[in-house]
């Protein structure tokens, strides 16, 4: 078969379809992963004893267990106790849990590095603890955590490929189907790889721009 026809008529349309699913997975998981990360970090730092333990268990489990296994549990395991998700939903939940757990570690580390005086000064002005955390501690912590968070976004892009292992035909999945059908493994996976490289590089550039925009003099990155 003609190489050019294969690329333009078969591979590209397939990858385009897959890319749309991949982008859906990422764009759904990233914001919730961020919120979960902030929530877990605040819960571990300022929550009651029960909240602390729950947040800690979540982080330890998710970080200790392979993401692929987590997806298997969500998609193949949970139906046995009556909880059924579509493959897409299970993937998004898995990515949110994973992304959130890792994010929370960066945010918590950054919160610990916010000096005590910031909290004391906020309380001396009459802020409640919650107000102080929200308006003073978190904005500083998130800025400091940004390099770590951006790493996690890049991981999220790459690990979204694991959704294929639970039957979501995203970018890698569509590549695999084409490669198997037309026996064009190297070309196809190089093409798939180029798309991921493009996404990753684009995200890196975007994050650098965000970091620059929210940079504050004297506040060290990382």
């Amino acid at each position: 078969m003609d190489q050019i026809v294969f690329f333009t008529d078969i591979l590209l349309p397939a990858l385009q379809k897959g890319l749309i699913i991949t982008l859906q997975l990422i764009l759904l998981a990233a914001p919730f992963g961020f919120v979960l990360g902030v929530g877990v970090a605040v819960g571990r730092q300022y929550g009651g004893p029960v909240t602390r333990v729950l947040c800690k268990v979540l982080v330890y489990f998710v970080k200790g267990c392979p993401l692929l296994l987590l997806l298997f549990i969500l998609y193949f395991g949970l139906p046995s106790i009556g909880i059924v998700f579509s493959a897409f939903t299970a993937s998004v939940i898995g990515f949110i849990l994973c992304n959130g757990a890792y994010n929370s570690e960066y945010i918590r580390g950054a919160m610990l590095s916010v000096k005590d005086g910031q909290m004391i000064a906020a309380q001396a002005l009459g802020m409640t603890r919650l107000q102080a955390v929200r308006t003073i501690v978190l904005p500083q912590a998130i800025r400091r955590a940004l390099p770590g968070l951006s790493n996690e976004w890049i991981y999220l892009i790459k690990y979204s490929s694991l959704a294929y292992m639970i039957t979501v035909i995203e970018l890698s999945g569509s590549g695999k189907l084409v490669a198997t059908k037309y026996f064009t493994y190297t070309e196809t996976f190089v093409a798939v790889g180029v798309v991921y490289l493009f996404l990753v590089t684009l995200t890196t550039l975007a994050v650098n721009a965000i970091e620059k925009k929210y940079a504050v003099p004297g506040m060290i990155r990382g």
Partner: protein
Amino acid sequence: MHTDEYILKVEDIHKAFGANEVLRGVSFEVKKGETLVFIGSSGTGKSTLLRCINQLTPPDRGRVWLHGEEVTNSGKRINYFRQRIGMVFQNFFLFDHLTALKNVEVALIRVKGMSKEAAREKALAELRQVGMEDWAGHYPAELSGGQAQRVSIARALAMDPDVILFDEPTSALDPELTREVLEVMRTLAQQGMTMLVVTHEMGFACNVANRILFMENGVIAEQGAPTILLTDPQYSRVKNFIGQFLEYNGD
């Protein structure tokens, strides 16, 4: 009115950290417009006393009243009292991620619920008062220590507090920066702000204080107007303490 004669009343404050008894029964009263200066060697509990007043460090015993309302044991209402009791810290504690202007604005908006426009106007006015209006857009890391401390005074002033607590406001500053901060504080005192100041600046204490309180071993050992403490032989201990500092400072 009788109850309003004293803005702030502090009664029998005790505080221990473990076995270390830092405050062992401190009582005093403050009238509107008074400037009280607390002096004494390090570790005599002066800073702890200030933090006990706005409950950043809850005292073990004793009570604090502001305008006849109890500040101690006030539960969630403590945040209301903290709005009325400003505080200026040794290390400024400016919010690192906010510009000078936003540092002054943030509590006006979040705590007092002012509109953004009103808060901005008020914040700019306070920055003008401490001579920092031109630096409104700068971040804390871009300010000298003296400038940062003036911004933190503006931040406290913006809340329109009944009294401001100054916790060694110039101890972290080089001598040449100390003056610009003391100037601002002197002006405030002259304008009738009620102030409690912990400091080692004896020149400021002698010239600006209505009353000097000399602390030793967790209690107020002696107190009185500067002129009396410096002249009356009965207070030779305080005089010696002050003299020792004046010598070091070379003035």
